[in-house]
């Protein structure tokens, strides 16, 4: 045990009020969303943004702001909040700090389900595709945990191994569907990697209730999730109904991941990175972990979306590429710290 304690022997100020943290995060989110509205290929002033949002005058500026900038300034934080909260729950469920909706293959599974729903079943409505994404995430979590359990125990590394394998498989299916459906190529390409650009605002209003339901479910589970951070024997002897809590948590994770994927496609590694920041800010109680992860996730994806507009300016980079670079770096750091 002694080799693992380096770097965390200092006292933690857990008694401090967390309200300043939440206030700062909320402020940060506001600033990030304003940045998303004003910064880009064209820069707009706050006055122009105000004018476009409050009184749409049909000008080009107003059309760009209300029609292009506003949807992504709303979808990015909502998807980020959903993935952040899903990441917290996945890491607690698997007792694994390198687990996330990505490493468990949930994003990829949701993408595959959406693509199959479109191509095989001809689903076109946004509500139908959102449902397909959530079901895809749920099915994937059942398959991944089932296979990992069947392969002799739910060890953290095994879950991730099975998840990554399944993600590869799901990506292959999506690619096969893509190459055999050239007519729908542009429409389908979106489901391979995440993006917030060119999304209709209806996607936001479609995803919002799903995220709210998933978050509400998550917040009813907080004290059970706290106890589930301990081993199964301890949690069970405290009276946690393990099977019911795990099942409900999977449903919450699937709703949140599915909603995020239905709005933005599979944005990589958000659910991996965000929970670490959230725990660092507010500690391990899930009431706070989830709230902070929602805010941090929202800020993170919104800023990543803004950054994506400038990394290869004047062309836009896919936001999934930005979050993948940050996420992969974080994953390597976490693994190195684990193995050290």
């Amino acid at each position: 045990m002694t080799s693992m304690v380096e770097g965390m022997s200092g006292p933690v100020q857990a008694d401090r009020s967390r309200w300043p943290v939440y206030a700062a995060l909320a402020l940060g989110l506001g600033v990030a969303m304003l940045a998303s509205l004003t910064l880009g290929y064209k820069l707009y002033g706050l006055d122009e943004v105000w004018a476009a949002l409050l009184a749409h005058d049909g000008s080009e500026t107003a059309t760009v702001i209300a029609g292009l900038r506003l949807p992504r300034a709303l979808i990015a934080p909502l998807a980020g909040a959903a993935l952040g909260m899903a990441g917290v729950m996945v890491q607690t469920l698997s007792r694994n700090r390198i687990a996330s909706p990505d490493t468990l293959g949930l994003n990829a599974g949701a993408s595959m389900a959406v693509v199959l729903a479109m191509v095989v079943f001809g689903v076109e409505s946004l509500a139908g595709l959102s449902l397909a994404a959530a079901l895809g995430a749920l099915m994937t979590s059942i398959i991944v945990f089932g296979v990992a359990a069947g392969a002799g125990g739910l060890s953290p590394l095994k879950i991730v191994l099975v998840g990554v394998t399944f993600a590869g498989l799901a990506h292959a299916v999506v690619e096969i569907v893509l190459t055999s459906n050239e007519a729908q190529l542009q429409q389908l390409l979106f489901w391979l990697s995440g993006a917030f650009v060119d999304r209709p605002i209806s996607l936001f209003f479609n995803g919002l209730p799903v995220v709210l339901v998933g978050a509400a479910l998550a917040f009813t589970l907080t004290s059970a999730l706290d106890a589930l951070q301990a081993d199964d024997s301890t949690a069970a002897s405290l009276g946690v109904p393990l099977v019911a809590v795990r099942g409900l948590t999977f449903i919450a994770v699937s709703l949140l991941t599915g909603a995020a994927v239905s709005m933005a496609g599979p944005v990589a590694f958000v659910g991996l990175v965000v929970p670490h920041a959230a725990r660092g800010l507010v500690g391990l109680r899930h009431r706070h972990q989830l709230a902070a992860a929602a805010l941090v996730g929202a800020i993170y994806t919104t800023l990543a979306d803004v950054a994506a507009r400038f990394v290869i300016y004047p062309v836009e980079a896919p936001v999934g590429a930005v979050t993948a670079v940050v996420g992969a770096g974080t994953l390597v750091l976490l693994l190195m710290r684990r193995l050290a």
Partner: protein
Amino acid sequence: MDDQVANRIEVKALSLSYGPEMVLDALSLPIPSGQITVLAGPNGCGKSTLLRAIRRLHAPQSGQVLLDAEDISRLNGKALGRRIGLLAQSPSAPQDMTVEELVRLGRYPHQAMMQPWGAKDDAAVAAAMTGTGVEEMRHRRIGSLSGGQLQRAWIAMVLAQETDVICLDEPVNHLDMAHQLDCLELVTRLNKEQGRTVVLVLHDLNLAARYADQLVFVANGTVRERGTPETMMRSDLIEEVFNVTAEIIIDPVHKRPICIPHRRS
């Protein structure tokens, strides 16, 4: 002894198997209220399983466990969690969890959706930390604690449950001698001062004899014999249960019997 003291728990003809393997075989055992009962026996005799079955972590094939004359299979998980606390063998929690966050977990069975965290919960957590001497380190991460400190933090977690019955599965494993005594003195204090009923699984027979009011030898899934340490610490019985020839002497300081093993019989 059974006749003077009410039994908090009554294990009745409990049989339990993992697959084809019989672990508990129609085992019966009364656990007197307000006493320390220590379960001892050779490896694989079923003592840990018995402790876990008392907290219903294993479902028996037949027989029952009565808690204050009530069948525990009729109680829901949280209700049972308010009455029996169990510290599992080698429990685990995230290394970056603080001591206070860990101790707070003990309040889980007292919380309901419509009845969130309150002053009673704060008081129980504070009392549990004071009682185990971990309040000074409540903001430390558990990964930074020594083995003895960590064990006290876990016991505080169980205390915060405010249960009348406390079960500890090999609580002094992996602790050095000083911390073994520390831990068991703490348990004895909780028993004497607060009247809690304690059930321990202990490997070290001399520690068992020193701290037990009722000492129980478990062998092959049944209770071989039970009684006070004075009646239980006999060389013939120890040879039969543990397969060692041993000499019993009286500890000159504590006046409790201690066993000096000679060789495997």
